[in-house]
Structures are given as C-alpha cells and as structure tokens.
C-alpha cells in the first residue's frame, strides 16, 4: 500500500500515462485521440493499456489525418469537451498547422472572446534516436512564435506528470512537447505528485559563474556538463525554461543579474529560433548586467541526419555544452 508522499520508481512515459489516466478519471469531458493511441498503445507507448481501461469512446484511434483530428479536437473543445490530442511527432504536426495556427490560436480573439479552445495537444519532439530528417526536429520554438498558444516542454518526471493536468484546466490551447529521449528516463516521483503550473522557469542547479538557459532533453545534458564544470572550478546555474510561451523573463534576468553570463542551449536551429528570442530579451532587459555577449549552442543548421555520429554532431552534447561554458567564462585568445 502506498500513502501520500511515498516516492515510487517510474519513468517519464509512465508519468505522462498516469497524468492522462488521472485526467480521464477526474474529468468525464476528457478523452484521448490520435494515431495509434489505442490498440497499438501509442507510437512511444505512452497510452499503452488505456484503451482496455477506458474503452474506445475515450481512447480514439484516428485515421492518418492530422488536420481532421486536430481540427476535430478544436471543435470538440469549443463545444465543451476536453480533448487530449496526440500527434506522433512534431514533424507530422505540420500537417495540422492550419488548424493549430489559423483556428486554435485565432478563434478566441476573432470571436471577441465568445469561444475558448481548452485543447491539449501532446507531441514528441527532438533528435537522438536516429530517425533522420522527418522525425527528429525541434520545432517548439516555431510554435512559440504564435500568440494564442501556450507552449510547454516538461523535462522532469514531476513536470511530465503535473503539466498535463494544468494544461487540461487551462482555457487556452496548450501544446506539450515531449522529447523522445526522455520517455525512458527513470526516477522517483511522489505518489501524490500534484499539478505543475504552465508558466515559470525554474533553477535546477544554482551557480555563480554563468547561467545555462535550456529546456527539454538538453536540460539533462546541461546538468551533466555543469557537474563536469564544477570539477574545473566553474559553477554553472542551470535554468529549465519549462515554458517557451510565455517565457519567464523574470527568472532569466534575475539569474543573469547574479551570474552576468548567459549560455543558451537549444536543439532547435539558431536562425530565428527561441534562442534568438532569449538573446534579444537579454539585450533588451539585462544589457548592463552582462559581462560577456550572450552565447548560444544550438542545433546545426542542417536537416537532422541519420547516422549516429552526424546526428550527435548536429545537436548540443555534454562536451560541447561544457566547452561553450568554458569559452564564455574563460575566453581563449582574449586576455581575461
């Protein structure tokens, strides 16, 4: 028997599944739909077993029609339901871009506030599984450009478990980006783990010498890099953004006011990406706090390639994060 507060071994995948289960039990308006979410159990096995538990009415396998089932989620949400739509991977979400950007993000405003879209869309994002250039991109920064959407990227078990419930309570369309390399992540989670707010970055590791600003799977690489840096006498503060829209400027700027150096780590591409937005905000809001130009470590400007050595080289890794941090704090070729 478990009691509240007990910590249980679980995975990121199971934490999301438990969050979905809890949502379906607590809110009769909630249901799941997407490709292979039922009989197959979910492309990444997140919804495995839920069909048997909740039945075909609430765990709906859809045709390969992203525009139709995402649009149907929007329509059902407007009519008072609480759909949880799963899109297999971020690249496929582009087939539903019309519905997400032209309908979900616009209708509340365009209708003068008559209709809300309380819709949750979950999707896998990111590289690291050798799935090549149509299954591995990180387009969450793109979506973060769109007013009317909320964009979150849970990186921990607590956030995976707690953000889904908050997303379902939110009156706005919330897109949840789950990095593919996190699904197998193991750890302990309180049996009574509660909701986690959708906005608000968090400092995952305090430090004095630089702020590493990141999210998603890059958080764990950044934390590993921070451990190595500590051994070399550099104390990195690691900020987990958690939400890309809205961005938590206050947490970023207050960290910068202490460390005076910023390294942004993002699997997304550098040009026009969320890292560019964060740099711009640093320049606007923290210019006089900075002791060095903001630094970025981003995905290489290339479609993600298939072979492991090239895929690894295309995105930030522990050693490249460490090197970028060292360069920022103790620049080579420049006198200190």
């Amino acid at each position, binding site marked *: 028997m478990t009691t509240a507060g007990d910590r249980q071994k679980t995975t990121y995948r199971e934490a999301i599944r438990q969050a979905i289960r809890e949502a379906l039990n607590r809110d009769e308006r909630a*249901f799941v739909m997407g490709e292979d979410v039922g009989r197959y159990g979910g492309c990444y096995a997140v919804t495995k077993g839920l069909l048997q538990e909740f039945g075909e009415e609430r765990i709906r396998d859809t045709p390969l029609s992203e525009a139709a089932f995402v649009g149907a989620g929007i*329509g*059902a949400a407007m009519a008072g339901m609480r759909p949880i739509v799963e899109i297999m991977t971020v690249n496929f979400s582009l087939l539903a871009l019309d519905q997400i950007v032209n309908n979900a993000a616009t209708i509340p405003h365009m209708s003068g506030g*008559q209709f809300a879209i309380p819709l949750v869309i979950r999707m896998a994002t990111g590289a690291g599984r050798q799935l090549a250039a149509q299954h591995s991109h990180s387009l969450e920064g793109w979506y973060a450009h769109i007013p009317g959407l909320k964009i979150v990227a849970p990186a921990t078990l607590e956030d995976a478990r707690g953000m889904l419930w908050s997303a379902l309570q939110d009156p706005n369309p919330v897109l949840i980006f789950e990095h593919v390399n996190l699904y197998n992540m193991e750890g302990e989670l309180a049996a009574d783990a509660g909701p986690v707010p959708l906005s608000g970055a968090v400092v995952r590791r305090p430090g004095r010498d630089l702020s590493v600003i990141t999210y998603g799977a890059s958080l764990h690489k950044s934390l590993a890099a921070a451990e190595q840096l500590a051994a070399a006498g550099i104390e990195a503060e690691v900020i987990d953004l958690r939400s890309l829209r809205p961005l938590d400027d206050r947490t970023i700027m207050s960290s910068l006011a202490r460390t005076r150096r910023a390294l942004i780590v993002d699997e997304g591409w550098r040009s026009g990406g969320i890292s560019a937005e964060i740099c711009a905000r640093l320049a606007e809001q923290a210019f006089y706090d900075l002791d060095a130009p903001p630094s970025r470590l981003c995905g290489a400007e290339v479609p993600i390639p298939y072979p492991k050595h090239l895929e690894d080289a295309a995105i930030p890794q522990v050693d490249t994060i460490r090197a970028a941090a060292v360069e920022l704090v103790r620049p080579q070729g420049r006198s200190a």
Partner: protein
Amino acid sequence: MTAKPHLNRAHARHLLEQMLRIRLFEERCAELYTQQKIRGFLHLYVGEEANAVGVMGALSGDDSIVATYREHGHALARGIAMGPLMAEMYGKSNGTSRGRGGSMHIFDRPTRFYGGNAIVGGGLPLAVGLGLAEKMRKGSGVAVCLFGEGAVAEGEFHESLNLAALWKLPVLFVCENNLYAMGTAIERTESETDIHRKAEAYRIGSHRVDGMDVVAVEAATRRALECIRAGAGPQFLECMTYRFRAHSMFDSQLYRDKAEVERWKERDPIRRFSEWALASGLLHGEDVVELEKKASAEVDAAVAFAEGGAWEPVADLCRYTLMDAVPT
C-alpha cells in the same frame, strides 16, 4: 418547384422575408464599402440566398453551424440580429465579435454559430469536432458545415468526410457549389465535377439540390437531418447555385461571360420564389411590398446601430488572445 405540406402562407412569408433581408443587407454593404465604411475583403452572397434560408430554416436551436467567409446570409438566416452583424462589418465594439473579426469572421455563441472561417476547407474539421462532442454527450444536435466547391480540392475536405463517416457523427455537410473557386471554374480544378459523388465514395448519403430553389433546399435539409438524427451518420448536400456579384469587391470578373451571369440571374431565387408564391395564391402583391419595406427599415436601423457603435479601446488590443476562463 415542389410544394411541401409545411408550406403555408406564414412559412412562405418567412422564406421570402429571410431572403429579402439578406439581399437588402448585402446590397447596402456594397454601398457602404464604396463609402469606405466597410473595409478589408467583402464577399457578397447575392444570388445564393436560397441556400442559407433553406438550410437554416430546417435547423433547431441545438444544432451548430460552421460557415465560410461568405457567411452574412447564413448568420442572418440563423437569427443573428442585423444590428450587431452590421456593426461587425464596420469593426465596431457593438459587433458580434466586438469588431475583431469583421465580415469574414462572424461568431455568435447564443445561436451556436462557430464562424466565419476564411481558410477554404478549414471549417470542416471543426464541424467534425462539434459533431463528435454532440455524439459523445449523447445530444440530439447536428453540426452543419457550409463550404464552397473550392473546398473540395483541399485535403481537409477528404479527411473530414472520412472521419465523420467512420465515426458516424451527426454532421451535415452542405456544399454551396457556385461553380467558381474565386476566379477558377470547377472544370479547371476538379477531375470529378459531380461533387456529391465524392461524398458517396465515403459512404455518406449524398444528394444534389437546386440551390436557387429555397423550398427544395429546405426539403432536402429536413430529409438529411432526419437521417442524421435517426443515427445514419453524416449526410451531404450539393446545392447548385451561383453568385451574381464578384468574388469580392476587388474582382473585375474577367473569368466569366456576362451572358452566363445573365442566364443565372433569370433564376434569381427571390424573384422565382415570389413569382411562384404569387401565382399559387400563397402570397399577395402587398406581402412582397410590405416585406421589402420591413427589411429595408431593418437595414436602416442596423446601419444606425453600427454608426452609433464605439470603437474598441486600443488599450484592449490584446484582449482575448489568451482567455482567462472558458465562457459558459
């Protein structure tokens, strides 16, 4: 023209009145556009009124509607008051969407009017979702989706028909086939120009209707709704119609013959219906005069309502981009 049992004098007056309201509203909108009171795009429905009036007249309050950017007629026939509608055309805060949507984005919660969608084909998935919600809640409402034949070329059309048929959802698809997707004739875009046959391919009950005949449209809609409410799944109507005016106010109509327009005008749904109703004795000449006068006065009042409306304060620019709560 087929007379139906329900076509008594009161109903005939209602049908004519609704079509006249739409016609006079839109003709005034065209004038207001030249006076720059209405800006942006303005897509007029003149010539197609029988479709909106025939379809909306058959619906109940539980039914929901998704329409296109040529939706003023649908909005009026659904029962949205003309004043707020005109104010929305002006962009005033007393408009249906507080002026934020304009001509192409009429929304109205009380009448379950879910827009005003200006992405061709973009409304169909929404209607599927409205139908899904209705089915999951075991309601009796039907989601009615109106779109032009141009939407048939979009992937969203095919995805939506398939999903609605697969899940047997209470959705009525109404294709208003006015033969031109903006300026491109249907035979230049479709390999199969009999649109209703595409719906048959998805095992959806499908019929072609004379969209210039308000009684035929209403009768076909009633039959389709009966099938849907009996659990037969989605139904499809292809209403053959024609827009007498340009696609929008920017259109110089180089793509069609004046003679073709004139031929279709001979089938003007208002003239045709009123001539028939007069000849059959259902209506009298004074009915027509009275209804025209009444509609004209309603348009005058709507213009006054819009003129008297305030602009949204600029301080509220970003309001409703994110909602604080789900409206109930």
